[in-house]
């Protein structure tokens, strides 16, 4: 690394081109603020009908552990969504986990009703954990029996939600949170918001829709009623308030919150694992299978001239989701630039998969190619063509 410092020379030549060694203060780059769409904007009757279909597929999770007092019944823990008509449901791992023991509750129940009212007309089922992904805080469970332990007829069909493609959602798209928040009592609650942001690598969808305790594990659906995410956590912006000016905070002021959803494609991947494996044949309800989380790969490579084979310094290289051509800050997954030897290391590791690779260097044509990133193929060689004179 080089630095610009006062020189040790007594006299320097006349200077016109000015470069000073004054330290530059670091500027804070604020994240772009996306403005929420007008929530008052009307929803078409068709959309309303489609979103309402999610009600019958979304249930209340209640659970208890054997170490709990025998007089204590099951307690509401969160929400869940039926994702397969044979009784496979998804929820958050933390919804079915006893925080005292760190293990799944011994008894987990799902209450479903056609109108979202979990009163006397609703149906109750006992669930068994099948597949757990602790990293993404997701769990797939299967209906084992009805609430009293009687088997479910094989021909029985559960109302299941239609899966959406969370990879294709766009900023400011409408979404609806369907679930059983604690403050909403025992009936289902739906509220509306928009997609405020996406963190593609960390696998989050951010929303301004209200997400509170009890929504965890429920459904976030688009205006077609398709599942695009699982409400998983909320991050509040709380700032300390020093009321008496003594330098110590006396109170916290909450300015707002951002809801975080796990994208539904993670659920689809878990269902695929379920289909490919034998998780449903696990002998013990307390031993669900652990989902395989992809190992992140640090992408390295080299950029060189196609004509001479010489390394190109200062080339900028980035990865986009496969097939994307328009490069924005929200779809640029990872990037880096080449050093004197043409070598680069992208700044964020990515899961294995296919991506679109882009590169740009002065005096060379823009480069674009689809690439496979895997454990054995993380070293990329980019050959760039000279710009024509």
């Amino acid at each position, binding site marked *: *690394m*080089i*630095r*610009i*410092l*006062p*020189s*040790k*020379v*007594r006299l*320097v*030549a*006349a*200077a*016109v*081109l*000015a*470069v*000073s060694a*004054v330290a*530059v203060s670091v*500027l804070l*780059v604020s994240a*772009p603020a996306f403005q929420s769409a007008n929530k008052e904007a009307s929803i078409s009757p068709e959309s309303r009908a489609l979103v309402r279909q999610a009600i019958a597929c979304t249930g209340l999770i209640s659970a208890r552990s054997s170490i709990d007092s025998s007089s204590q019944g099951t307690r509401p823990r969160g929400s869940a969504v039926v994702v397969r008509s044979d009784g496979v449901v998804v929820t958050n791992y933390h919804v079915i986990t006893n925080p005292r023991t760190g293990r799944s509750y011994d008894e987990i129940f799902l209450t479903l009703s056609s109108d979202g009212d979990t009163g006397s007309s609703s149906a109750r089922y006992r669930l068994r954990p099948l597949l757990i992904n602790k990293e993404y805080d997701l769990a797939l469970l299967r209906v084992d029996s009805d609430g009293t332990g009687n088997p479910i007829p094989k021909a029985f069909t559960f109302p299941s939600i239609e899966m959406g493609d969370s990879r294709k959602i766009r900023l400011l798209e409408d979404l609806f949170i369907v679930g059983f928040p604690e403050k909403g009592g025992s009936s289902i609650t739906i509220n509306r918001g928009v997609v405020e942001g996406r963190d593609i690598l960390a696998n989050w969808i951010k929303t301004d829709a209200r997400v509170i305790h009890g929504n965890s594990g429920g459904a976030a659906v688009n205006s077609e009623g398709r599942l695009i995410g699982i409400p998983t956590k909320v991050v509040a912006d709380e700032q300390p308030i020093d009321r008496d000016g003594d330098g110590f905070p006396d109170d916290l002021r909450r300015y707002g919150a951002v809801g975080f959803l796990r994208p539904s494609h993670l659920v689809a991947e878990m269902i695929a694992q379920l289909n490919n494996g034998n998780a449903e044949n696990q002998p013990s309800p307390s031993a669900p299978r652990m989902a395989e989380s992809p190992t992140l790969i640090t992408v390295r490579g080299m950029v060189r*001239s196609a004509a*001479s084979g*010489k*390394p*190109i*310094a*200062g080339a*900028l290289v*980035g990865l986009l989701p496969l097939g994307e051509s*328009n*490069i*924005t*800050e*929200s*779809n*640029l997954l990872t*990037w880096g*630039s*080449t*050093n*004197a*030897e043409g*070598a680069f*290391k992208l700044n964020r590791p990515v899961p294995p998969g296919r991506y679109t690779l*882009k590169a*740009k260097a*002065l*005096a*060379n*044509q*823009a480069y*674009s190619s689809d690439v496979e990133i895997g454990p054995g193929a993380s070293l990329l060689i980019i050959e760039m063509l*000279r*710009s*024509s*004179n």
Partner: protein
Amino acid sequence: MKRVTIFMLASLAATTLIATAGAQARGGRKQNEASRARGLFIHKTSDAMSILVLKVADGTLIPVDPSSEFKAGDQIKIQFQSNFEGYIYVVNIAPSGKRRLLVPSPEATDNGVHSDERYDFPLGGNAIQFDEEKGTEVLQVIMSRGRIAYLDAALKEPEQYLSESASSAAAELQGGIAKKVTPVIPEGEGSSKVRSRDIILAPGKDKDTTGSVVAIPDNGSGGKLKAGEIAPFEIRLKHK
């Protein structure tokens, strides 16, 4: 820990031209090219620049061969002289690949150059000093007839680093900075691209005050930069 620095001048367009004084002796073709570059510079038949690398030694500035070796703590200055009216940009590419705009800077935003005027980099009593980080530093020097908006935009980035944020990296990869479009911005595929001119080189030597010369060869199409054209070359600083 000691560090050795080697200065090398290079054409980004044709890195085979990465030159050292030793390379000059490789053949008559190189010698002819060097004579031609100096001739183009002096007679102004092509756009060209002379670059003089000066090492701070015993309180004075001494011209050095680009292949000279430097140690940690050594200080250098670089003098540019152009034979054309235009702009120069200087980007430092660190061994890690990080890129930082050195010229222009927030303190000196005017990077315009005028024919026959000599410019010091850094300005005044400042010098480039090598720290302990090993590897090859690159100073990418870009001659341009007009301003280059995506580099100008780096002036607003923290410490003038290029593509530190996702937004600036996306803008550069996509092909420019919105709202500041000029003909010399690198464009995306399908649109007009930056045109880069080949460069020929005459490497400098120790104690040679004429320094190195880079020039755009006049291959029948004229050796002058046109609107939308850039001519980049590299100065390489190697630490060992």
